[in-house]
């Protein structure tokens, strides 16, 4: 028998929400939805309104820049356990790059409008989210810096 998993359970088991109280898990679940993208599909496009963030459940997504006359430049690939999309927190709330499914991708999306409303009435909920987001941003920044070193480059 196949049991369809509830969003609450998926959120609870995702490392991003580790240690979150059951009440808050329910609050987040209230703004969450399952999404599915076929390989090649766009989750977000540069410049478009960013009103969600995503937890990757399955598959690989690429963060990429479209470059004229060249194939898109992949900035980073993300997969199961990763989180992406903080443009909804930062004005002007538009996607900073394209996000494309490289394989079949299953995501949980969290709706920004829905969350903002809840944060206004419960700042602690906002804190719980931000303290999870900041390390993600810091890690991503550290990785970007590491790649700026171009450490495998052949010496000139």
């Amino acid at each position, binding site marked *: 028998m196949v049991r369809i998993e509830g969003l609450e359970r998926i959120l609870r088991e995702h490392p991003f929400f580790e240690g979150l109280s059951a009440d808050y898990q329910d609050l987040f679940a209230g703004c969450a939805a399952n999404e599915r993208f076929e390989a090649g599909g766009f989750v977000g496009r540069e410049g478009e309104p960013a009103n969600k963030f995503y937890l990757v459940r399955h598959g*690989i997504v*690429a963060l*990429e820049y479209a470059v004229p006359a*060249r*194939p*898109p*430049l*992949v*900035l*980073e*690939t993300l*997969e199961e*356990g990763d989180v992406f999309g903080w443009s909804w927190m930062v004005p002007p709330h538009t996607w900073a790059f394209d996000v494309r499914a*490289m394989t079949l991708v299953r995501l949980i999306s969290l709706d920004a409008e829905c969350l903002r409303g809840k944060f206004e009435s419960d700042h602690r909920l906002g804190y719980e989210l931000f303290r999870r987001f900041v390390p993600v941003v810091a890690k991503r920044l550290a*990785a970007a810096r*590491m*790649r700026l*070193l*171009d*450490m*495998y*480059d*052949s*010496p000139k």
Partner: protein
Amino acid sequence: MSVTAAADPMLPEPFGILRKRRELSDTFTLELSPLHGGGTFAFRPGQFNMLYVFGVGEIPISISGDPEDDGPLVHTIRAVGTVSGALRDMEAGDVIGVRGPFGSAWPVEEAEGRDVVLVTGGVGLAPMRPVIHHLLAHRQRYGKLLILYGARTPEDVLFRKQLEQWRSRFDMFVDVTVDRATGKWRGRVGVVTKLIARAGFDPHDAAAFVCGPEVMMRFSVQALNERGVADERIHLSMERNMKCAVGFCGHCQFGGQFVCKDGPVFRFDAIRDIFSVWEV
């Protein structure tokens, strides 16, 4: 019978180039055989030879072949300087000088019974290949076997076919990432340390062997530590200027160690105090 360092350790033995294979735009592999016989070149995974080009000079290069194969001596070389450039310009039939093998080896016996994580970057995969051969030849002695490999771009992925063969095996895990890629690359894009963070192994009982650019090894050790791998179970392969390979010339000193004879493979806790100190 094995070829060992001659009575005069500074005297190179002539070896003929049997085959030369282009690996990457600046990287190639030489298969070598001693000109005057001498049978199999015995070495331990992680050791290196000094390769001499007549009248041009000599450089240290890790051995990249299978230690249990009685075939030719194999070196994979990136052309980055005068001597490596001269080696790149050589062809099958040409003769070069070889001194060695020198240096310490990856502790493959110590790692028995454990998961083994090989973290490599760039052309650092070449010195790692003998240990991969060894681990696969004695697969049952080890737990999980993982190769985590980072390269600059998809075009810089070394031993691509071999990596694919290894990846297709059910008894090992191969993960490759590149720092940057265009849309044609279907694999991962990101730093090699991210592979460490998500790889499936037992951090409390795994042996980690790290080989790549020094800065990459620095970040890799941090990522391994974050996973819970203790310094005593991390080994890495260092690189320094070398003129003699036998501890006379002093060039390869790294703190109280000589990279040529105490290394190139070091247990991390032996060099931890100086690893992050500037200009050691």
